């Protein structure tokens, strides 16, 4: 990714151990319905934050707020240390170039083939076409879809589209990745493949990420597994270990009902939370 003002801000944040993403008392509503109420949390550098909660709880809205795609009614959102409300439109677009986002329905450009979809960010940055092709092939190999390079989104299955979407999100080596239900609507085997990719990205690139999931088993897999670079596969962390960089945020009816580590979640005494995770 081209060096920009945002790159230097991120380096400063990492040096000062400050959060990459912060929500402070954020509220938003649509047509009289409050979707998020006073949401406060922070995501540290290198952290994988899993966002859980019942459907309709405001998780996808939170994701769009984090990327500045919508504005909150009140509260403050800081991305890479800067408040979104202080940014101009141009600064917002520059900031978004450092964030990878995987949409719930993939949101691939249907008139572009897989190569152009994945290369979109690099083409926008006027990267040399030879380098663009090499990086597209590299990232498609990462998601194990290199054979689909010249196919169009309409020719791909739901799981393949989700993998292309992941490839598009990570090609520019972003500093923050937002996964909006990457396994939503997929069968368990394909879901596992997608989660393995998320774990691989986490353990290979150590990128900060925020991930929404409805499937508790996906969250458990993320917390209890790691990627083995020698064997090129995902495996359980030995001795019942837990990935330290994985933390949880649970939303219910627009409010944060839990913010903590995997162990804190599994040992919670909150009756609603116990019912939810059981």
């Amino acid at each position: 990714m081209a060096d920009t003002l945002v790159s230097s801000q991120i380096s400063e944040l990492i040096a000062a151990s400050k959060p990459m993403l912060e929500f402070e008392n954020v509220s938003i509503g649509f047509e009289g319905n409050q979707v998020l109420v006073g949401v406060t949390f922070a995501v540290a550098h290198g952290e994988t934050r899993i966002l859980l909660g019942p459907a309709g709880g405001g998780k996808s809205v939170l994701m769009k707020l984090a990327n500045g795609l919508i504005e909150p009614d009140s509260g403050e959102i800081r991305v890479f240390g800067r408040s979104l409300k202080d940014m101009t439109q141009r600064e917002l677009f520059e900031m978004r170039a450092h964030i990878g986002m995987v949409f719930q329905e993939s949101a691939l450009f249907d008139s572009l083939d897989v190569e152009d979809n994945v290369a979109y960010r690099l083409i926008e940055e006027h990267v040399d076409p030879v380098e663009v092709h090499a990086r597209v092939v590299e990232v498609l190999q990462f998601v194990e879809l290199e054979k689909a390079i010249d196919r169009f989104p309409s020719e791909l299955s739901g799981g393949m589209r989700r993998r292309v979407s992941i490839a598009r999100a990570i090609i520019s080596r972003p500093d923050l990745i937002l996964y909006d239900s990457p396994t939503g609507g997929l069968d368990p085997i394909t879901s596992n493949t997608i989660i393995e990719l998320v774990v691989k990205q986490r353990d290979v690139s150590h990128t900060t990420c925020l991930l929404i999931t409805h499937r508790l088993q996906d969250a458990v897999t993320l917390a209890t597994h790691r990627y083995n670079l020698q064997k090129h596969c995902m495996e359980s962390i030995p001795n019942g270990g837990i990935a330290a960089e994985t933390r949880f945020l649970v939303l219910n009816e627009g409010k944060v009902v839990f913010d903590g580590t995997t162990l804190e979640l599994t040992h919670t005494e909150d009756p609603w939370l116990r019912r939810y995770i059981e």
Partner: protein
Amino acid sequence: MRFISPEAYAKTIVASVQDYSLLCGRAVGNIFSQPRYIADTFTQMDSIGVGSLPIVVLTGFFTGCVLALQAAVSLKEFGAVNMTGELVALSMIKELGPVLTGLMVSGRNASGMASELGSMKVSEQIDAMRALGTDPIRKLVTPRLVATVFMLFFLTIISDACGIAGGAFVSVTLLKLNAGTFFHTGYMSLVHGDIIEGLIKPLFSGFIIATVGCYYGLKTTGGTRGVGRSTTQAVVASSVIIILVDFLVTQLMIGIFGR
């Protein structure tokens, strides 16, 4: 059917006008700053300009034919059938060429823009574009705006030429008029003000077609049904605004040139 209060309805209209004005302002402002999507602009010029050529040529030609036929009937009563060329040339260049070309291109392209952008909106492709750091107005609206204004100008000239050719064809073959007289009276009747009036109108029409088409596309909600609704609204709104603006520009030109 749900009724809304007049106050809420008025607020909706004011908000729509505000959103439309902001879109227009940003689309025009993007022309003067980097990055510019030159390749996208040429693609749109091909799609809007070259793609609309057949309908503009046919519409212009047959409008000229009908105009000559109708004019000859009325002019014959005054023994002025030789003035057919003047009437066809003035009508085509000042009014029918710009307006009919605008309406035809509106029907073809405002609907196309609204449906294309609307489909992208409902399938989250617009959000994906923004999430990837690209301004959709800069990437999608500005190239369409530049291409439509630029191409409509030349399409109108072609339409005017085809209309006069159609009028000449009918005058010579059916009305048995002299071709030289037709073109001479037509040419002599025109002054610079008429040409300027006829060439200013497509600039406004092009702006209206692109901005209204893109505006309805970008505010689409409600899935495929919403895309259909946006497409219809874009064509209706752009057609009505083209005729309204045509009236205002005509009034202004009469004020300036006195005819």
